[in-house]
């Protein structure tokens, strides 16, 4: 019984990780249909921001929850203004351009910080369930993932800004006609998406260590989750993360992590074949 609870917690942690690394990409994709291949590198920058902040003496939780998102959010805004906004509506060009951007970011970070694996120490201790131990950090990841999803859903549903955002997602020209500046909305959205990526990087830094190539580990999974989820930001990411995360963890428990990875990819392929618009292209359409 305790083992089942423990495995359940680990499965939820896996799902929460998928949610955290994908939500930023999903926000940007959902709003602007821009696929930011450099998203993994934004996660990595969040990790480095956390490392540098903690090395400079900032409290580690401040570094993760404040410094990382704010820094990467600002970087995102700059990138959007100088670079991304010229590619709206040109899907293939955006892919190529953001891929080039990811290479530049990796190269610059390697040149600045070297290839070493930097560590962030977080002292959350461990919890016990019936003789089994696990790190309490898993619970923090799950809590933050839930909070982030709730916050985005809440903003989109209950605030004016959210209404404007949803309107621009549906029909940018109409929103412009009604007096809202789509360009500014895109800039803010890209900034928020990048900030979410930075938050993910900060949260994952204690778990996986921070290297310049850290983003390449996450971009594949984030990409798959977003595309499988479909256009809806909150429900798409949640559904896809739940499905892919459980398949991955279940297969890992049953066999081993390599099999888990294979299962995740296989399920994604089947889902996309059956529902090319993603899960929320078929179910829960027009949801948040």
């Amino acid at each position, binding site marked *: 019984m305790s*083992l089942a609870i*423990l*495995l359940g917690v*680990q*499965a939820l*942690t*896996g799902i929460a*990780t998928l949610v955290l690394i994908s939500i930023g990409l999903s926000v940007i994709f959902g709003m602007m249909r821009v696929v930011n291949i450099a998203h993994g590198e934004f996660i990595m920058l969040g990790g480095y921001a956390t490392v540098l902040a903690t090395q400079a003496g900032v409290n580690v939780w401040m570094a993760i929850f404040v410094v990382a998102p704010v820094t990467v959010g600002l970087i995102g805004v700059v990138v959007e203004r100088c670079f991304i906004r010229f590619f709206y509506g040109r899907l293939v060009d955006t892919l190529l351009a953001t891929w080039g951007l990811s290479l530049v970011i990796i190269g610059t970070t*390697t040149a600045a910080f070297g*290839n*070493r*694996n930097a*560590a962030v*120490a*977080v002292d*959350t*201790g*461990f919890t*016990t369930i019936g003789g*089994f*131990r*696990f*790190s309490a*950090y*898993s619970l923090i990841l799950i809590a933050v993932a839930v909070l982030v999803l709730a916050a985005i859903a809440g903003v989109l549903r209950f605030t004016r800004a959210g209404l404007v955002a949803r309107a621009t997602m549906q029909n940018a020209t109409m929103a412009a006609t009604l007096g809202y500046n789509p360009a500014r909305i895109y800039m803010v959205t890209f900034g928020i998406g990048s900030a979410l990526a930075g938050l993910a990087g900060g949260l*994952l830094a*204690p*778990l*996986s*260590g921070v*290297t310049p*190539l850290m983003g*390449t*580990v996450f971009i594949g999974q984030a990409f798959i989750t977003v595309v499988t989820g479909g256009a809806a930001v909150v429900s798409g990411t949640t559904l896809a993360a739940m499905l892919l995360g459980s398949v991955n*963890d279940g297969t*890992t*428990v049953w066999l*081993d*992590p*390599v099999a*888990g*990875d294979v299962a995740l990819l296989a399920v994604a392929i089947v889902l996309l074949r059956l529902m090319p618009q993603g899960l929320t292209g078929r179910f829960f359409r027009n949801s948040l």
Partner: protein
Amino acid sequence: MVDFNAAGPAISGRPLKASRRLAIAAGLAALATPAVVRGATEPTLKIGGLYDLSGPFFFSGRQFSRMLRFAVDEVNAAGGLLGRQVEIVGPDAQTNMQLYSSLTQQLAMRDKVSAVFGGIASSAREVMRPILHRARIPYFWSVNYEGGVCDRNVFSNGTTPDQTMQKLLPYTTAKWGKKIYVLAADFVFGQTCALWAAKVAKDIGAEIVATDFFPLDATNFGVTIAKIQAAKPDMILSIIVGANNLSFYRQWAAAGMKDQIPIASTSFGGGGTEPTLLSPVESNGIVTSFGYYPAIDTPANKAFVQKVYGALGPPPEGAVLTEASVSTYEAFQMWVAAVKATNTTETAQVVQWLEGNRTFDLPSGANTIDPATHHNTRPVYIAALQDRAWKIEQAYPAQPPSALGAKCDLIKNPDETRQLTLVGP
């Protein structure tokens, strides 16, 4: 304005004018002349040192390259080799297999080096090996690897899993218990070591409770940690590799498991960075087995370590002495001994001399090259990590080389050139 008619045959379709041809020929001759002149007055003995100086393996690459440089400087300071100074041709392979291929060709064809030291990943070695075999340039492969290379042109002086695993598992199972949970990286080294672990475990009556393979980019070990606890093993054998897999040790400690189930490994610490990257809380007590540790307590090794730290600086910023980096130094010593003894760098003579049952007194201990397999009978050590420093617990001199030697006989089959594999226990 460009005159396309004079630009060349590709554009105008007309044959080159005679004056143009003469100009091109003169230009080419001018370009070639320095090479001809260089050939006539060659003062240095060139060797190739092909390592990854950038990219994911840059840390190891830099260490090996510096150790080779240190070894060469030592020899040059003592008067050089055959009256000439040794020069390293050391391009950066950038952890890129295509570059390994083209750079090895370059070392063989353009630089015409007398010996090649290099390669870090087994995939790099397998790219370099056939090229150097065809070019008849001896290749010294020093990284501890999965074993099995059977090639008369190659000398492998690092340890192989049968040498380390065969000592590590009996020692740790006697200390901790016979139920082993194996974690391995999912590529040739991890897979092969897992097979060796299964074989050794069977021989000593230990039980492999489970073997989990991880992709090299795996960073989330939460489920695995749960599985391990459910299986209740006496020890963990970790053959995970690389920066991402390092997260396992962090997450293991974070889950409070560090003092519950001990960890042994034949890969942890091989890169040299692991003790610095983990905190003592996360890494104390991990037991590993390699062919060399800086703590080896012989006068020869102590002098060696002092000299290296003096020249390159102490760790972690300076020299990080792992088995592989010291084996690079040791391989160079073996080549130098061969060249001095035969008074030539000619490959056939060097190889033949090295096959004469030669023993060398090296920092890791006494190494003897086995003529049939070109691997070394060499010392193997077991050490535990304490406060970021390795403390040697056991020393086993003169461990015979790979048991695959039964399948590899370079004396009988001198044209052999392949890598043998251990298939199943």
